[in-house]
């Protein structure tokens, strides 16, 4: 491919749905999810890869969507927080966040959920240490770290998700 200026057509699969769209080449995946696709569950916060509020899964791996151009996602499979619930029912992980009081203002929650989801997919029985490492890229200004960790542990221990 060559000579692609300013906008470019891309095809991505978001939460199982194929989308063909034209994006500005300097817009991030975060911009396109929120502004073009109106999937505002993914949050914009630090924009420098430090807080994790913009965490989504791209081809099975979590990334900070503020540090990735939308054009780089061309052809990719994307999972956002909106894709965790099935048929209107929260996933066990989401329910655990509510049950354990892991949500205060809720701003970091989508990112925390995506990072926890990825952690549990890779490691269904994480230790406390694994959870702290797996969530090290997600800050919570309300300081719900203990409750978030509890929520992840409760789902892991339950052995179902």
């Amino acid at each position, binding site marked *: 491919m060559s000579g692609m200026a*300013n906008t470019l057509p891309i095809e991505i699969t978001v939460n199982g749905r194929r989308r063909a769209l034209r994006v500005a080449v300097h817009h991030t995946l975060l911009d396109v999810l929120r502004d073009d696709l109106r999937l505002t569950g993914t949050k914009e916060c630090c924009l420098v890869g430090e807080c994790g509020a913009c965490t989504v899964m791209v081809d099975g791996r979590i990334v900070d969507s503020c540090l990735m151009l939308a054009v780089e996602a061309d052809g990719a499979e994307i999972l956002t927080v909106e894709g965790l619930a099935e048929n209107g029912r929260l996933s066990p992980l989401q329910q655990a966040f509510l049950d354990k009081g892991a949500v205060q203002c809720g701003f970091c929650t989508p990112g925390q959920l995506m990072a926890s989801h990825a952690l549990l997919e890779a490691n269904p029985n994480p230790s406390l240490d694994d959870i702290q490492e797996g969530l090290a890229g997600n800050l919570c200004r309300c300081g719900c770290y203990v409750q978030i960790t509890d929520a992840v542990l409760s789902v892991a221990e339950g052995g179902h998700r």
Partner: protein
Amino acid sequence: MQTFVYERPATLAEAVALLDAHGPNARLLAGGTDLIIRLRDGSARPGVVIDVKRIAELHPAIREDDGIVTIGATAVVADIAASEPVRRHFEALADAAAVVGSVQIRNRATIGGNICNASPAADTAPSLLVYGAVVVAAGPKGTRRIPIDDFFVRSGVTTLGPSELVVAIEILVPARSTGAVHMRRTRRRGHDLASVTLCCSVDDTGVTRLAYGSVGPRPVLVTDETGVLADPDAPDEAKAAIFERMFAEASPSKRSMRAGPEYRLAMLRVLGNRAVRAAIGRLEAKGRVEA
């Protein structure tokens, strides 16, 4: 973010031609964990951004051939940390790859980007220096191999030519049994670059190699062939004298917000001692397995 022309070459030849055509107006994009931040804050304003991630030559699987392990430039550090040949032969590089940023960062950050960004704090640099890695670079005149110690100049500057890009890193599997470890001091796990990085290897002839970063414009490699550091029974004063010589090149910035120079210099010695002990431990553990 200012707009630009986005190019996504599929071959190395196309990428080199683009670099050659656009000169300093072009910027290579790998994982973007350094570059996207600079595009957004305006400290980099390229007219053309060349995405290198779909160049087939840059992302073969990490492989071991004839005693050389080859890591493609766009290999992400998460995969390097998990790679079987890396963990087997270059445990300190696996250590380093595993502590870069957070999971989200490690899933994007490439080894090529880490060394080309040439931050003095780049975590993969000390172990690549200790293992004597070679940078394979391609440009209009073909391919050349640059020993990593000749690659780093200062923050953001390498000896790569203007139309060159990094294709791969090659590391020779050590001929001697070697134990090595990467250590760092950082303010907060998952978010911050290190205030001191240090890699140490000890081989079965008693040669100790140290590389340290974040305490000067570029990471530094030094060697002790006296055998004193590698000798667990050598007196502390003898070791301290050798460390003084090895750390002579450290000149931490007075202006950094991360840590003061006194702290960094003190921590360099602490990490040096710890890393030598840990490397000897790993060497001995190998001896037990091989015996």
